[in-house]
Each structure stands twice: as C-alpha cells, then as structure tokens.
C-alpha cells in the first residue's frame, strides 16, 4: 500500500518526516501499486453550467498547501483558468485512493495521478464536442475552459459540454498524453490558500472543532512508558467528580517489537485510563485527581543516554542504502570541496503540533465513524 510504503520509509529515515529520504514513488494513475483500484475523473471533477470547475482535494491540509496543490495539478491538465476553480475537501473514501499527507509525499505521489485525472476529464469534454460537431478529435483544442474547432471556427464552453461529457466513456488514464511543462499556466504559479477565508474568520475547519449531537469528551492518561500496564486506579473518586460520566482502565494491546513494524503491522495500543465527561474541562479536571499505579513494563529502564550510545555504535557499522543519486564519495574527494564532519543527534521528541492530538468518534446505526 502506498500509505504504508511512505510511513515505512519515513520511519527508517529516523522517525521524522524528512524531505526526500524515501525511495522515488512509482505510482500510476490506475491507483496504487498492489491495488486494482482505478481512480475516476468523475469522482474528482464536476463542471457547472457556468463552466466553473469544482475539484476535490483528497489530501488533508497540514500547512504546506496540499489543499491547493493537488487541485492545481488537476486544473492544469483540465485546461481551465484557476479563477474558475472551486476547491472542496473530500471525505475519506477508497475511491479517492491514498489520502495520506506527510513525509513530503502528497505532492510526488499525486503528481501523475492528479494530472491524469484532469487530462481524462478534458478528453471527455473533447469527446462531447466531437460528438456534437462530428469532427475528428485531433482537430479540437482546449484553453480556458473552452473546446475549439479552428477549421470551422466553432467553440463550446465546458459548461455547455458538461452534461454530455459525463456520459462519455472514461479514457484509460495511463494512455493520456500530458502537457509539456513549458505550457503550464497554473503549476509553478503562486495561488492563495483555498482555506484562507475560513481561517481568518475562525470557521470550525480543524479536527478539534468537530461536534456531533450529544458528544462527550474523553481524556486518556496513557502509560508513561511504552508497553506499561495499569495495576489500579482511583476510578470511583474520579467518577464522582462534576460532569464525569465514565472512567475506566484500557488494557494495552501488545506493540510489535521491531520499530518500523510499529507503524503498519497492527499498531497495538498503549494502556491507560480513559475519563469521559460532559465537556473537556470536566474530563481534564478529573484527570488531575486521577491516581494510577503502573507496571511500567520491560522498557522502564530505557534511557536517552543509552539510546544515544547505541546510535553511535550502530553508526560505525555499514548502513543500508535507501536511495542513491550522484556520486557523493567522488564529490568528497574533490579539491574544491570542503568536507565538514560532525555527529548530529536528534532527541526523541514529539512533533509539537499546535493542535493537540484529538479524534472524534461517532457511533451511529451500529457503526463508528471516525
């Protein structure tokens, strides 16, 4: 799976999301390696009678511009003007393919599929014009949301063609010819953030802003040491506090032993105590009164100094090549190159995102939507 592929690569690169340290993606427009999934332009693009193009942004925005960038790729090959584009966020659904943003992967992994989505929709619009005019497709050209037939001096807007275009056969995405980059009108240009207006007016667009009817708020006191377990906790005292509905011990599910597998071989689950209350403040206040007796488990004696010593020891052994480009050894030998050598140590720390980790789970009709 694409998503796992990148998570694994990022993990090997030191647990951080590091630029350019994953193998080059080998993806095609027919979904992702190892899957039979076919992406459809009809799931990503809809064109209104006014020729405005609504393009689905399938990846999450984390501050680097994925919300704009993927629709820009689609719009470029669709051959519309950027001002005619409206971006909408997608839900999480298999039909959108991989939807993972992180590890600098959203752009390279979607670079080809998203352009092919736009090109496919463009081809369907041309097919609709060909059928209307009864002319060869090769004689038709597009630009700024219009299909033109120069020989007969005719043109139709995408808006005029859209209802017929969506009934045309979806072309084989892999066979489509893409633009020469020198002809790009949108890619490479600065566009303003699709969510800027929502942000400056304080709209509830973040995970932490989600509400559902009758929602309760939970906090989770997690074992301070990975793999630890709860021996006991003063649950009755916590439950008696104002606004608290439930308090219970969550038993851990063992974590895979080797580190990269931690991310994708059944993630396991850390043990702890969950407190559920009418509002976050009540849950958090109860957490301050929580007393837990822990069994810290087998990693209790791990410490950062020992890890650093181990890293130093391992760094002296031959490494594994993840990606190789150019000839670094030859560059080091050049006379005009100054070689600087120094050990760099990165501590085991959190990413320190400003939005605290959170998640909303909605139980409805026997299913949980997350």
């Amino acid at each position, binding site marked *: 799976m694409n998503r796992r592929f990148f998570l694994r690569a990022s993990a090997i690169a030191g647990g951080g999301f590091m630029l350019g340290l994953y193998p080059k993606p080998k993806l095609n427009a027919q979904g992702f390696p190892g899957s039979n999934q076919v992406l459809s332009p009809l799931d990503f693009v809809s064109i209104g009678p006014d020729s405005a193009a609504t393009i689905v942004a399938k990846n999450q*925005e*984390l*501050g*680097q*511009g994925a919300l704009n960038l993927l629709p820009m790729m689609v719009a470029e090959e669709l051959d519309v003007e950027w001002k005619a584009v409206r971006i909408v966020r997608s839900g999480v659904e298999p039909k959108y393919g991989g939807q993972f943003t992180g590890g600098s992967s959203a752009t390279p992994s979607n670079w080809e599929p998203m352009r092919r989505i736009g090109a496919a929709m463009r081809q369907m619009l041309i097919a609709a014009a060909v059928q209307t005019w009864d002319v060869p497709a090769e004689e038709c050209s597009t630009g700024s949301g219009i299909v033109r037939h120069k020989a007969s001096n005719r043109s139709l807007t995408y808006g005029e063609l859209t209802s017929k275009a969506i009934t045309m056969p979806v072309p084989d995405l892999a066979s489509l010819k893409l633009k020469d980059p020198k002809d790009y009108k949108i890619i490479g240009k600065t566009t*303003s*953030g699709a*969510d*800027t*207006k*929502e*942000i*400056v*007016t*304080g*709209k*509830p*667009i*973040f995970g*932490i*802003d989600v*509400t559902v009817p009758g929602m309760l*708020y939970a906090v989770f006191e997690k074992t301070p040491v990975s793999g630890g377990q709860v021996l006991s906790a003063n649950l009755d005292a916590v439950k008696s506090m*104002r*606004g608290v509905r439930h308090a219970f011990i969550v038993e851990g599910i063992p974590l895979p032993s080797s580190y990269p597998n931690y991310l994708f071989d059944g993630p396991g689950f850390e043990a702890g105590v969950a407190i559920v209350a009418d*509002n*976050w*403040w*009540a849950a*958090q*206040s109860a957490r301050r009164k929580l007393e837990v007796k822990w069994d810290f488990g087998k990693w209790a004696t791990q410490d950062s100094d020992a890890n650093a010593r181990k890293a130093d020891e391992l760094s002296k052994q031959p490494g594994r090549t993840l990606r190789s480009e150019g000839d670094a050894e030859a560059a080091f030998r050049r006379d005009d190159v100054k070689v600087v050598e120094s050990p760099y140590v990165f501590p085991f720390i959190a990413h*320190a*995102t*400003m*939005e*605290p980790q959170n998640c909303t789970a909605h139980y409805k009709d026997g299913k949980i939507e997350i």
Partner: protein
Amino acid sequence: MITLTINGKLRRYDGDPEMPLLWVLRDELNLKGAKFGCGMGLCGACTVHINDEPARSCVTKASDVAGKSVTTIEGISADGSHPVQVAWAALDVPQCGYCQAGQIMTACALLAKKPNPTDSEIDNAMNGNLCRCGTYQRIRAAVHRATQLTKSSIGGNRQGAL
C-alpha cells in the same frame, strides 16, 4: 450564574465557574474560532479580547469574566471584512491556520492602541503568539497592510459595528 457579553450579546453561563473561558466559548457556546493549543497561556492560540484587551482564554476562569465584554474572532466580523482579516487574506498569511485566530486578535488589539506601529512594536506585541508554520514575516507585513487599509482607528470598541 455568570453573566457576560460575548460578541455584543448578553450570555449566561451556569456551569463550573473554574472552567476557563476558552471552554465556555468552544464547548458551551460552540464558538470554535479560539483554539486550544497549550492550555497554559504560552502559545496564544486561544487569544480573545476581554474588555478590548488581548487575553489568553485558556487560563482565564469563567468567574473572572463575569460582567465583562468578550470579543472572539467570530465577533470582529463574520464575513472577513475587518481590515486585519482583509490584510491577512490579501497576503495569504495562514498556512495550517491553527494559530491565526489568536494572531489576528492580538493584531487587532495592537492596532486599536497603535494605529501605525513600527516593526519592533509589531514584534513586541505579537511576540507571545506562536506559529508552528513560521508565518511571522507575513504576519508583520499584514499588520502594516491593515494599517494602510484603514487610517482611522480600528479594533477598539467595535461592538457598535457588530
């Protein structure tokens, strides 16, 4: 029972008086603009105005705002027409956006007091609002842009315009 004014409207709150204003706004009144970042008054994501002064709502008890007037990002203008919002959008300041409501509230309060701030006055005023994406250069430029957009005093008591 606590009575206070939020974005020009009289509101009543009869929950835990110890609950910080941030959670009264977010969980009780469904005003999600002010953000929860650190919960310790260190990051500025929760900044609102209390009697026109910027304040960290995550460490301000509900009981401390009784009888006071609170303005949140939703209250400066719902359609983004406040000069600071206009400047922010024009310069495309936000990246992830999580800190930006707090940034904007601090900037509004600054401009209400100093309609034409220098770079160092901007930096001093905005100093306590952290941005994990590092949009500080555009924030400073947007404060200057907001100054250009309105030569008259903004912020201050805008309640009449709400």
